[in-house]
């Protein structure tokens, strides 16, 4: 492409087909703000450090303002140039994006390949009324086309226009003549969007709070330790020196004596205090995380598909066309299951901020999940299925391998205790831990034998797996792409195999099936797949 940039339309006007446009000028501010944030904080630390080591703040103060001003200027110029040299075009058959200050890159994404258009608002762009528009291609999230940033209204218009054009490219029922780019066509597209949307699922603060209670997380401790490592030079003392000194001076001995001085009640109370603090922090951080991520969670059924909005600081707005849903995942946790809480997500070609699943009802009752599943064209298991288990040999081998190795380790500890001199301590503890682990693994496999199962119904393949986070996966038979039977050496000897389905955007496998079962399943599923051509799939 040549570098000429004649008559580029300003953002904010009505979108015309085949016209080069620029993103909003305010995105320079966002870009500058971001790099500034990265640069100013270290600069501040630097100045702060210098002021402490030298003759005090007086030495540094005169330079602070020019230095920061220089940083701003250095950041602003490339940001502005980047904005000036970036242009995009909504064409008749593709979306194009050209960018680069010196070396130019031109990317073109045909409408055929666009899976979805999503909008995302991080905190700073949100304050400025900007959105990031992503054209998702299902290429693993890397090769997608992003426009950062356009105004909110422009984002909405872009999404409507492109979506209408995508529908046209798909040869679907809707708007084949939209590609001509006449004004009234956009009016039709806008009308389609304005049609009433039905609310399928929402999470009021009360529900969010319950969800947060179940999202216990100790990540905060890792964050604190990480922060200490990062910013320890700001602390008035050296943490690691302190810890080292504590060990060297036998501080723990003092502490032990202090503990010894207390009576039993005080000790138990102390231990309880620590336990409750840890649990309290875990629960609080779980609640905070949930509120930030899922604030104002709304799932609506619009004529264009499922529309999900959520987020407190980073707002996201995603629309998933119904026919792009490849499979459903109903997941839960070992504890929340007892209280009847489940989560529903869709597996689709488009990515949801890095994860392949789109959460559509992260924390809901089964009664709330069922209508959403029905809306997506899936049936939840209702007990009429003929559930099958993985092969008994598979379970037995798994139990033997995991529990057996633990028992071997336990015996190793036992012999070590007999052979080694009596000074070696902790061996009996190791023995009991290994024995307990062996029992745990055996019990786990027995539980899984009762829980893990799969079924084939006329239109779907269903699998239910897992003990800590049980999940039920439901895939549409005609939307699978290939079927593989895989066997390792042990599996071949013992007569079981893994049945792996090729599914767009996700993994779907039944592990440890009896070979005969797998072959029958495969034959049945393949007949369903082969009977519908890819081009005739409901899209």
């Amino acid at each position, binding site marked *: 492409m040549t570098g000429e940039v004649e008559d580029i339309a300003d953002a904010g006007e009505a979108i015309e087909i085949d016209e080069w446009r620029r993103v909003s000028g305010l995105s320079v501010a966002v870009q500058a703000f971001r790099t500034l944030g990265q640069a100013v904080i270290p600069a501040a630390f630097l100045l702060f450090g210098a002021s402490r080591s030298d003759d005090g703040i007086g030495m540094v103060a005169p330079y602070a303002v020019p230095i920061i001003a220089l940083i701003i200027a250095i950041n602003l110029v490339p940001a502005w140039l980047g904005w000036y040299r970036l242009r995009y075009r909504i064409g008749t058959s593709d979306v194009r994006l050209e960018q680069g200050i010196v070396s130019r890159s031109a990317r073109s994404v045909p409408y*055929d*390949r666009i899976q979805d258009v999503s909008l995302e608002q991080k905190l700073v762009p949100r304050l400025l009324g900007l959105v990031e528009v992503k054209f998702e291609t*299902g290429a693993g999230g890397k090769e997608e086309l992003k426009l950062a940033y356009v105004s909110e209204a422009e984002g909405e218009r872009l999404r409507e226009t492109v979506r209408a054009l995508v529908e046209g490219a*798909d040869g679907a029922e809707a708007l084949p003549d939209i590609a001509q780019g006449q004004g009234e066509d956009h009016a039709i597209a806008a009308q389609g969007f304005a049609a009433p949307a039905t609310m399928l699922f929402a999470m009021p603060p009360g529900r969010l709070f319950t969800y947060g209670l179940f999202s216990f997380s100790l990540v905060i401790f890792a964050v604190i330790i990480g922060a200490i490592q990062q910013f320890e030079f700001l602390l008035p003392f050296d943490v690691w020196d302190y810890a080292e000194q504590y060990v060297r001076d036998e501080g723990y001995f003092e502490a032990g004596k202090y503990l010894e001085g207390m009576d039993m009640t005080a000790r138990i109370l102390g231990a309880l205090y620590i336990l409750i603090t840890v649990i309290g922090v875990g629960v609080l951080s779980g609640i905070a995380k949930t509120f930030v991520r899922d604030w104002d969670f709304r799932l609506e059924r619009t004529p264009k598909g499922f529309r999900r909005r959520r987020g407190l600081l980073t707002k996201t707005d995603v629309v998933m066309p*119904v*026919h792009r849903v490849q499979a459903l995942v109903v997941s839960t946790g070992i504890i929340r299951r007892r209280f009847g809480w489940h989560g529903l997500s869709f597996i689709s*070609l488009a990515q949801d901020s890095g994860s*392949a699943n789109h959460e559509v009802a992260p924390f809901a009752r089964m009664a709330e999940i069922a209508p959403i599943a029905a809306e997506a*064209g*899936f049936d939840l298991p209702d007990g009429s299925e*003929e559930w*099958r288990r993985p092969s008994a040999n598979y379970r037995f081998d798994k139990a033997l391998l995991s529990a057996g190795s633990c028992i071997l380790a336990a015996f190793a500890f036992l012999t070590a205790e007999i052979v080694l001199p009596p000074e070696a301590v902790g061996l009996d503890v190791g023995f009991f831990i290994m024995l307990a682990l062996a029992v745990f693994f055996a019990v786990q496999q027995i539980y899984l034998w009762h829980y893990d199962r799969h079924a*084939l119904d*006329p*239109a779907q393949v269903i699998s239910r797996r897992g003990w800590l986070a049980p999940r039920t996966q439901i895939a*549409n038979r*005609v939307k*699978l*792409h*290939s*079927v*593989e*039977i*895989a*066997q*390792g*050496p042990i599996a*071949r000897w013992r007569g079981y*195999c893994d049945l*792996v*389905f*090729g*599914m*767009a*955007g*996700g*993994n*779907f*496998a039944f592990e440890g099936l009896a070979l005969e*079962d797998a*072959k*029958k*399943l*495969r*034959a*049945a599923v*393949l*007949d*369903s*797949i*082969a*009977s*519908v*051509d*890819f*081009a005739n799939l*409901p*899209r």
Partner: protein
Amino acid sequence: MKQKIPTSNPLYCPYNAPMDDTLPDAEPLTPLDPSYTTVLRIEGLIITIPFVVGAAVLVSADAVPPWVPALPVLILAILLIGVMPLKRYRTRGYHMAGDRLRVVKGVMFHSDTVVPFSRVQHLDVEQGPLERLFGIARLILHTAGTHNASVTLPGLAHADATAMREDIRQHVKRESM
């Protein structure tokens, strides 16, 4: 959107119901072109050469008695040139039905994949220099699935591979998504 298939439909196969009189996947597999073994042997030879050179250097330096490096290299050569190519050739095979291709492979880790033609996105026929020398080719089927995004069938006579590609392409009505 969902296509409800009635239970009376023959496509619906509950486990306990007898399938047709034939067991699934009972059809005989077509073996690959015999020169595939030769190509594998040459590839094995190429892998072995650096080890032979290394062993020769060790022996000429008088660092160790000659049999110490010679024995493992000999075993490696027998495995890579003598045994494995034949085993791999024997375990590989394919079956082309009217609407699907079945690819079987694996000596230790067995894999048996079926791709319906209606799910093929696009097709490749590839030839390396060695393969070109012996007139064989690889047929690669690309699907939209994340798992098995491309299924490779090596060791076909080049004419067979192109014929199969044309055959399968008849079924790929439209390349999209």
